[in-house]
């Protein structure tokens, strides 16, 4: 029998932070955290969980990316896009804070446009600090595949972060 109270209490802060980094919104991060733990209930029913932190980070990352995409979709409906900026960094001057804010917003938008698996692998590696082996184990991939996905994700992100789209309007 799984001691959910202990699992939630122990791991909630890390799960919340994982979600917040992507969403930059406390309410969304809280909802995402809840969804991640509820999903974990389903996972725990099907299999024995060996590594709770890694599982929960993965579930939180997936849910956060889904919300990010939904948010981007919503912002496409509005005339004024949703402000995706990160919080100001207190150590920077106003101009630098603005640049970092803009870059944070752009990278979130770019992540929402990556193929699912690439986005997930990228976030687990660079935002959650998981190793290739951990990522491979949790996503049912080979370590080689993880490397390929990361390479593609980085290339695509680089392109998107630098690209100016050409459209007639």
């Amino acid at each position, binding site marked *: 029998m799984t001691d959910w109270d202990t699992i939630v209490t122990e791991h909630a802060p890390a799960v919340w932070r994982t979600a*917040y980094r992507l969403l930059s919104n406390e309410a969304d991060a809280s909802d995402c955290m809840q969804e991640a733990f509820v999903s974990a209930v389903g996972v725990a029913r099907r299999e024995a969980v060996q590594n709770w932190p890694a599982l929960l980070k993965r579930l939180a990352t997936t849910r956060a990316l889904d919300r990010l995409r*939904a948010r981007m979709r919503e912002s496409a409906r509005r005339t004024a896009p949703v402000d995706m900026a990160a919080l100001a960094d207190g150590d920077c001057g106003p101009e630098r804070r603005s640049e970092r804010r803009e870059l944070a917003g752009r990278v979130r938008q770019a992540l929402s446009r990556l193929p699912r698996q690439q986005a997930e692998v990228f976030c687990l590696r660079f935002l959650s600090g998981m190793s290739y082996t951990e990522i491979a184990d949790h996503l049912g991939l080979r370590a080689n595949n993880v490397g390929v996905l990361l390479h593609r994700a980085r290339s695509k992100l680089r392109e998107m972060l630098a690209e100016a789209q050409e*459209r007639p309007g």
Partner: protein
Amino acid sequence: MGSEKKDKQGDIVDEAVRTLLEAPLPPGPSDEALARTLTAVRQADSMAARPTLMERIRSMNRWTKVGTAAAMIVAAAVCGFLLFSGGGGVAFADVKKRIQAAETFTCKVVTSAPELKQPMVFKAYFKEPGRLRAEATFGVISIADVQKGKVIMLNPKAKEATVINLADLPEIQQQQMGFLAELKELIEGKPQDLGEEKIDGAAARHYRIPPENQAAGVSVVDLWADVKTGDPIRVELEGRGHEYQITMTDFRLNPRLDDKLFSIEVPEGYSRINIGRPRWKDVLDGLRFMAVHNGSTFPESLAMNIELYKKLRGKVPKADLKEKWLMLGRMHLFIEAQVQAQQWSQWKYVGAGVKLGDRTRPVMHWLPKGAAKHKVLYGDLKRIEDMDASKLPGRATTKAAA
């Protein structure tokens, strides 16, 4: 390990990641959020009873990931090749949104539209996470894997495999992920319970999802569910303006489906065709091509159907036909992507009868996101003007050529 070292080379991606990692985090989660999560987890853990139909519809989050992404791409790539006539919406995506969650299921899908001389019939298979297979009765098999970001269309007769990378369609990909938000809007509104009926020989509960809860493109959705099991028996939906109707029957929930059914690898012996990334240039080239092969006049419709293919086969050298057909596909995908991502709204093709090169007569117009005026593309395929809605050409047709 060498590849792990490469990750550390500095560039804009690294800088972007640093901004996310170094941004200050507020203290969290709140006690309230933690308490809510504990409650939800305890509830999920204790839930033993089979969910009702509406509870399963509410858990349809996963199916937006399966259906909207996969189905929209399949529809745009396959159905759209034969069905798309401009701005009519996407069949499978709308259908999929309304089928309740299951790990796998299969059903029969029948699609009717004015452009079709007879309904298109598919056998559809769905499997978590994010996989769809559609076998058309005319022989083409389409497979989509959202997680892997790819769609493949197999033509067993010609031994050809056309591959679409979802990364080449960021607008569609972004759009379909956002269907989760639209679905939440849908299920927050209450479907009408129309009571018990006999349908296809079984006692069923009839639900209707009202138009105000629909995503763009769908007018009415009717769902009949078995009163005993809650399983769907029949789903019917209509596009806005009733330009298409879809009926789904023969549902099987949670059948065993081999992963091989959803393989997006090019089968042995098949030649691979990459459709490529759709661009605005494909729209202009596609329109020009259609006009050139219609007596230098833009056709009644842009629909890519069997009749068009046969006409082109008689006029275009065989060596070029495949590439031109792909170009036309990219033309449709580009327009579809703009419409589905709501970058363009009120897109209309109005070129029927316009002479190629005529810069005084429009061939298509659309309203860009956030714009007050419509953009109008003229028959010379160069002139693009802004125009008030009140002055847009009155003649607009999306009917297929006879």
